């Protein structure tokens, strides 16, 4: 059961990693194309990254509780 919880923790981190990686990559692309909009893009990037991270953290805490 502990092993499974750890596995779930890892999967949550993996999902968040892929998600935040995508967000960061696309934001970089956007900034490279339109450097004048970098402020707005950065703000939006942080909001979306925080939302993805929230889902991952909920998953990690549930995996803690299932232990």
């Amino acid at each position, binding site marked *: 059961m502990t092993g499974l919880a750890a596995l779930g923790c890892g999967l949550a981190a993996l999902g968040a990693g892929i998600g935040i990686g995508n967000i960061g990559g696309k934001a970089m692309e956007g900034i490279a194309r339109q450097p004048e909009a970098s402020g707005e893009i950065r703000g939006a990037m942080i*909001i979306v990254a925080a939302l993805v991270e929230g889902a991952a953290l*909920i998953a990690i805490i549930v995996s803690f509780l299932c232990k």
Partner: protein
Amino acid sequence: MNFKHFISILTLLVSLSINATENHTDTMHAATAANNQESEHTDENKAFDPVPTIMHHVQDANEFHILGAISMPLPVIIYNKTKGSFFTTMSSAFHPHHGEGHLEVEGYKMEHARIHSINGDEIIDFSITKNVFGMLLGMIIVFIIMFVIKGKYNTIDKAPKGMQGVIEPLIQFVAHDIARDNIGKNYFKFVPFLMSVFFFILINNLLGLLPFFPGGANVTGNTGFTLVLALCSFIMINIFAKKDYWGHIFNMPGVPKAVLILLTPLEIVGLFIKPVALMLRLFGNILGGHITILSIASLVFILGSAGKSLGGSLAGGVIAIPLLIFVNAMELFVAFLQAYVFTLLTSIFIGIAQEEHHAHH
């Protein structure tokens, strides 16, 4: 479940599993000892286990440990549910050493830096614990900074200098870039709340990163603290919400009645998910950061087999110090980022609740 004692329960779970594995290894050792392999037994038994140490540092405590045997006594206020009476003393009455009390006082004992009842009475701990002390300190620092800065604006003919130069851009940042851009025309009503939340979280995050006495309490990495902050946000979001916001939750315009049966419960759940996500995000990030820092510091003790091998300790130090500098710098960034994200998301949710729709097609 009782979120206020979430960490305690978490620690309990972890320590239970550790006890279980210890018992397991003990029986294993007994078996190997029977096979005359005692050297292996002693070697494995002395290995440093970082988990209890780390949990001790991120956990709340009824005393504030400073250095070696010195610790700051804190007031203990306990409500005994079974007896229905209060019990107050100072934590020094338990003569604690590294969080383990040597004395029992009126049926209470100190274990792992927390007060417990000996005969199993149900108690509620209202004590000024380490976290409460850290929080009050953070509050006082915010007050002092803000009143000093406020006094400087009585004479505004001079350019800002000193602390003013740090706080003024931050205040502008919260008021304009966070509040005005996300809330809209009614933004000024919410600026005092957002500003308090931002600076309170920021100062407590930074205090938590200090490894020595006045800081070091894991205040923002505690569900009790973040729960109350999220509750404040929840109240601020919903109490000033406009009619259209409730309309979109209970009776989404332009949606068939049959779909509403499915949609409305989801919207109501969404109402509560927002503060819960705020709570867990701050808690998880700060606790995670603290555990990472402590794990890397534990490397010195693991490689040095708890201080017995000098070469191992040195090797651990060489690996750990650059990593620690890197992680601490990153946590410094996270301290700002999480204060920003909490305030930003609160103002976005307030903005959603403040929005007024005039026409639907």
